[in-house]
């Protein structure tokens, strides 16, 4: 079974530039998550999709972050414009169902450095 795929693995941009991350979840997983993990901290949920609908985006900084999941499969997360404090690893995860009772499968993450 293929795991969660993410690209790119690394990205370096200057502040005020824009960046996009891509995620392909495990086939058949209805729920997709984007997390932000700052060095030394645990992952923090940014947005959760159930199929192609948003379930929770309460912690997404909507003035600069946006995400979409077209056709309920792949997803993209965009930051525009980036700030220095956005430097982090962005993790995509998927699960069979939306309840937290189901284990989540994480991708390798995208390490973003904003200079």
């Amino acid at each position, binding site marked *: 079974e293929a795991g969660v795929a993410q690209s790119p693995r690394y990205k370096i941009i200057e502040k005020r530039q824009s960046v996009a991350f891509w995620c392909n979840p495990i086939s058949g997983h209805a729920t997709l998550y984007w997390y932000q993990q700052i060095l030394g901290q645990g992952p923090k949920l940014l947005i959760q999709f159930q199929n192609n609908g948003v379930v929770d985006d309460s912690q997404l900084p909507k003035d600069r972050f946006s995400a979409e999941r077209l056709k309920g499969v792949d997803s993209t997360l965009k930051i525009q414009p980036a700030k220095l404090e956005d430097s982090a690893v962005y*993790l995509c995860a998927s699960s069979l169902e939306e309840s937290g009772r189901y284990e989540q499968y*994480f991708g390798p993450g995208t390490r973003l450095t904003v200079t």
Partner: protein
Amino acid sequence: SQKIEQNSEALNIQEGKTATLTCNYTNYSPAYLQWYRQDPGRGPVFLLLIRENEKEKRKERLKVTFDTTLKQSLFHITASQPADSATYLCAPPRGGFGNEKLTFGTGTRLTIIP
């Protein structure tokens, strides 16, 4: 406010000994709790889920306990090996039934010394 605390940032244990990691949460009562392992440069990997009506759960050399009175979960690795070196994250979810969202602690970085 709701908080999750893992006992220490780093823990060094001699190979063969039992490693015990602590996860404390305050101001909420999750019905279950998950534990994940994260290696450098990789995403977390699910290890175990324990429910509030389960005092203890085991998987090979791993054992997790869940004390809802103390609001604490303990994660044990017996007969530890250098390959067990990683960061371990506890994740007690927040939210109502059917709307739970995993919330991760900061993690404990475990090093098993040969």
